[in-house]
């Protein structure tokens, strides 16, 4: 049993906590609501699109921990997780600021959101959103999030290439991620039932 084997064991243990699909569902719903908000030009959906993130930890506590137990990772891993959370928080705050700027645009103070979205700024939003998924992939070592990053970015890119309402491809990308998350969750629930006392 080499050092590499032990590192691999630690990594597999850590990744077990991402097999539940909850992060995918939360992230997917955020993108889905954002896309629908754009499609229907609804400021309400924009305001509430980050709300699925609120359910992340409660769901982890109710679904994941009873099934695969509670673990304290090595200090090195804990440091890495804390650092990742800080970086994600900063990235999230910056994205939120960008969102606020766009939201103010809805009211027509600076610019109209629809017009704003129709311009190349769509790609900026796409890049920020895709970067958030890529960050999760890098920081938390969950490789499927690289795929989500590409999917989300392509959702923002499509209106430049095809005649399609902006927002719809983003919603489709978000819906796809949510469905993948739900499939992972279903498989997780079957694979790891709550152990009997």
């Amino acid at each position, binding site marked *: *049993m080499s050092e590499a084997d*032990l*590192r691999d*064991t*630690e990594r597999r*243990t850590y990744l*077990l906590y991402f097999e539940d699909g909850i992060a995918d569902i939360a992230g997917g719903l955020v993108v889905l609501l954002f896309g629908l908000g754009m499609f229907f030009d609804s400021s309400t959906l924009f305001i509430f699109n980050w709300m699925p993130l609120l359910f992340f930890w409660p769901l982890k*506590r109710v679904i994941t921990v*009873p*099934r*695969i*137990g*509670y*673990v*304290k*990772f*090595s*200090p090195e891993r*804990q440091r890495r997780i804390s650092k990742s959370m800080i970086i994600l928080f900063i990235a999230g705050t910056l994205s939120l600021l960008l969102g606020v700027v766009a939201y103010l645009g809805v009211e027509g103070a600076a610019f109209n959101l629809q017009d704003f979205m129709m311009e190349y700024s769509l790609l900026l939003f796409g890049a920020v959103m895709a970067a958030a998924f890529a960050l999760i992939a890098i920081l938390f070592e969950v490789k499927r999030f690289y795929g989500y990053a590409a999917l989300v970015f392509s959702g923002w890119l499509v209106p430049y290439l095809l005649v399609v309402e902006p927002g719809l491809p983003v919603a489709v990308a978000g819906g796809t991620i949510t469905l993948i998350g739900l499939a992972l969750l279903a498989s997780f629930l079957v694979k*790891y039932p709550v*152990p009997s006392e």
Partner: protein
Amino acid sequence: MSRRENTENDMDAIDRLDRVIHEPARLKIMTQLYVVESGDFVYLMRTTGLTRGNLSSHMTKLEEVGYIEVIKEFVERKPVTMLRLTDKGRTAFLEYRKNMAQAIESTD
């Protein structure tokens, strides 16, 4: 060093293997606890594939020799029984790995 002396050293490495850890189920438990700081009973059941009863009996054995310890903690105001390797357990596991590597090397 002669071939005979080499063989004797290899045999020594096998003799030095810690029999408490050498049992497959206990080796799994020690490995899983080595890679984390601590974990609860369910975590060990999931990662080792052992049943509750089986795991419990091996845990008792490891606790008796002082390789693991049970800690009561509060996580979000709920009591959780956590298990972790003691310093003695970590040293024993490292020693076991070293001896096992030597024993395997000798068969190459």
